[in-house]
């Protein structure tokens, strides 16, 4: 037995189940492979462009799978499976209306501006469009949010290790984070993207087996629905839209306006079109057509993710003999909602298959963490260090800063992981962060891209006031819970509903402030808006391409499937 396994075994405390030697081999092979890829790719990472944007030579498929895989982090796998158990199929909204329209909008409308402007990052685009102050504000808030997200990923991963394998939580945080640090340090975004595509396959192949076996046990979809209705009378867990007519008729306490406007428009468009963690993957594409196709490919796979994340949560409602509870009550042998996926894995998977399922979870956590770390390194190096600290230096210097920043980002994330342990609900915490920083950012970017009259002062003040107002609303409800009736339009609204409405208000405030300030201030001259704004950018025609080669055609196909799925599960 290797010294590593001795260390792992001595680090154990308590466990939900025991892994066999076969499972440990499966997990060990994964770690060997991701580190091996990192070492192999180091020789191809010689410039800043290589490290931060993977040399801009990714195909549409690789960029697209990486785009969706970077989002398949800890929260996607554990959190949303738990949310499906708690809220039922309503959680699917975060995958369908909360993702697909925005991803297609990014592909068809926004990608040309990001790609043609040759920006390295989203804050970099704001610099070109609105000036240095907007870039600094968005870079700093993004950096802050990213290390917090990374900490959440680490904590979630360590929690899984503790629950399933019995590994000490602190030990798990350090092992996982140092592995990610090593392969991102070596190969930068190229290494992160390679591993994300690998992780995409592992996540699907490791988690899909749970859904298939769960459906077999429950007697198919109709059998599952019947069992849920029998076991949980009076609550509807299996309809997407039909119970959203009032706040009190669904388990989430949300109205359809919140889902459509808050989630489907502001949160979703903000995250998928302006969060640099995901946009960075698409910027690595080799040409504009690939950059436009990548989000369309990502959207197609994103639409299928509920079958490996939401479905196990619903199946757990139908087949698990025990009742899961919220994190604060999960003591004395009770399991929390977030443990639903590991419990389902333990229910169906024998030796080897269990190792694959655990590897899928670890892969999801590591892809999310790597996404945060690589995006943080880019924004820190280009938008904070080069913009504010050292403006003139060689490409080699910035490459070196990026590498060391990867390690710094991991260390800060480890610190935040310990902070995250204090929070009862991981998901609600993250949604709050999105409404603070991403919702107003979407207002600024979309006005910048589509409205020539938006001025640098308008962009900056809109972003600042939108962000402050979002944090202010959160504090208002935190200090006086009765304020929920104003912020979320209902005193019965759950945390998720509150986050959705807060995002909507902060976006509206950002847009109003940007428009008002822009009207009263001087716009940029037309020549400075070339390749940045609709109407001043020459977007290459796709008229010479066959229909099946055009991104707009595939976007229409994905959109059609999206509509059909919503009708089926209405």
């Amino acid at each position, binding site marked *: 037995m290797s010294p590593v396994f001795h260390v792992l075994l001595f680090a154990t405390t308590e466990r939900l189940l025991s892994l066999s030697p076969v499972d440990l081999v499966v997990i060990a092979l994964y770690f060997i492979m991701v580190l091996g890829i990192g070492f192999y*790719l180091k020789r191809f990472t010689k410039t800043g462009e290589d490290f931060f944007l993977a040399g801009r030579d990714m195909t549409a498929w690789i960029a697209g799978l990486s785009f969706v895989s970077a989002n398949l982090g800890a929260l996607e796998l554990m959190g949303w499976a738990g949310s499906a158990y708690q809220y039922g199929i309503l959680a699917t909204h975060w995958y369908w209306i909360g993702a697909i329209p925005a991803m297609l909008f990014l592909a068809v409308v926004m990608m040309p501006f990001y790609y043609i402007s040759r920006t390295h990052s989203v804050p970099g685009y704001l610099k070109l469009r609105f000036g240095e102050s907007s870039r600094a504000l968005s870079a700093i808030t993004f950096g802050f949010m990213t290390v917090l997200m990374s900490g959440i990923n680490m904590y979630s991963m360590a929690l899984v290790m503790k629950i399933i394998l019995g590994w000490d939580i602190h030990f798990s945080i350090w092992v996982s984070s140092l592995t990610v640090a090593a392969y991102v340090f070596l190969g930068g975004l190229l290494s992160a993207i390679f591993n994300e595509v690998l992780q995409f396959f592992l996540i699907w192949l490791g988690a899909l087996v749970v859904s298939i076996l769960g459906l077999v046990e429950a007697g198919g979809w109709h059998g599952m629905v019947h069992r849920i209705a029998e076991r949980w009378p009076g609550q509807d867990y299996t309809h997407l839209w039909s119970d959203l007519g009032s706040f009190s008729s669904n388990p989430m306490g949300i109205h359809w306006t919140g889902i459509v406007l808050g989630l489907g428009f502001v949160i979703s468009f903000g995250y998928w079109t302006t969060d640099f963690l995901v946009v960075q993957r698409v910027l690595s594409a080799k040409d504009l057509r690939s950059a436009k196709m990548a989000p369309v490919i990502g959207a197609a796979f994103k639409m299928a993710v509920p079958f490996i994340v939401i479905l196990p949560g619903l199946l757990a409602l139908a087949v698990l003999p025990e009742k899961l509870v919220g994190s604060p009550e999960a003591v004395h042998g009770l399991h929390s909602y977030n443990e639903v996926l590991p419990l389902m894995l333990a229910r169906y998977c024998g030796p080897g298959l269990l190792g694959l399922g655990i590897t899928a979870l670890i892969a999801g956590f590591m892809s999310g963490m790597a996404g945060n770390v690589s995006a943080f390194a880019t924004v820190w190096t280009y938008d904070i260090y080069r913009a504010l600290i050292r403006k003139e230096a060689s490409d080699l210097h910035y490459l070196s800063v990026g590498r060391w920043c990867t390690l710094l980002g991991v260390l800060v994330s480890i610190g935040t992981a310990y902070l995250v342990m204090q929070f009862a609900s991981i998901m609600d915490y993250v949604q709050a962060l999105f409404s603070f920083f991403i919702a107003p950012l979407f207002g600024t970017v979309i006005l910048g891209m589509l409205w020539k009259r938006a001025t640098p002062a308008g962009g900056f003040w809109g972003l600042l006031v939108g962000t402050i107002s979002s944090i202010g609303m959160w504090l208002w409800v935190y200090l006086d819970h009765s304020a929920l009736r104003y912020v979320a339009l209902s005193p019965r609204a759950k945390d998720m509903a509150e986050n959705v409405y807060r995002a909507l208000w902060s976006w509206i405030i950002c847009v109003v402030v940007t428009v008002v300030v822009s009207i009263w201030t001087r716009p940029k001259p037309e020549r400075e808006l070339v390749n940045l704004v609709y109407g001043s950018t020459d977007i290459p025609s796709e008229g010479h391409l066959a229909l099946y080669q055009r991104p707009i055609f595939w976007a229409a196909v994905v959109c059609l499937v999206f509509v059909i799925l919503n009708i089926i599960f209405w």
Partner: protein
Amino acid sequence: MHGEYGRLSIWFFIGVLLTLYGVIILAAGLYEVSSPPAHPVVLFRLHASIWWGALLLVIGLFYFIRFYPKKP
């Protein structure tokens, strides 16, 4: 084959890992058939490890062979 940029394709790495996983999980499933565990998982009678391991092996071998590095 080496990719357009002189490096191994990501699909080759995927092929290697899935092939290894397929062999391991298939073998574990076959072993369980010959020596059934004392506390079997739910739906043990379906022998999911065998057919899922076989599926991984087929997918892995496809990518491994299709993207195996060739001399230029």
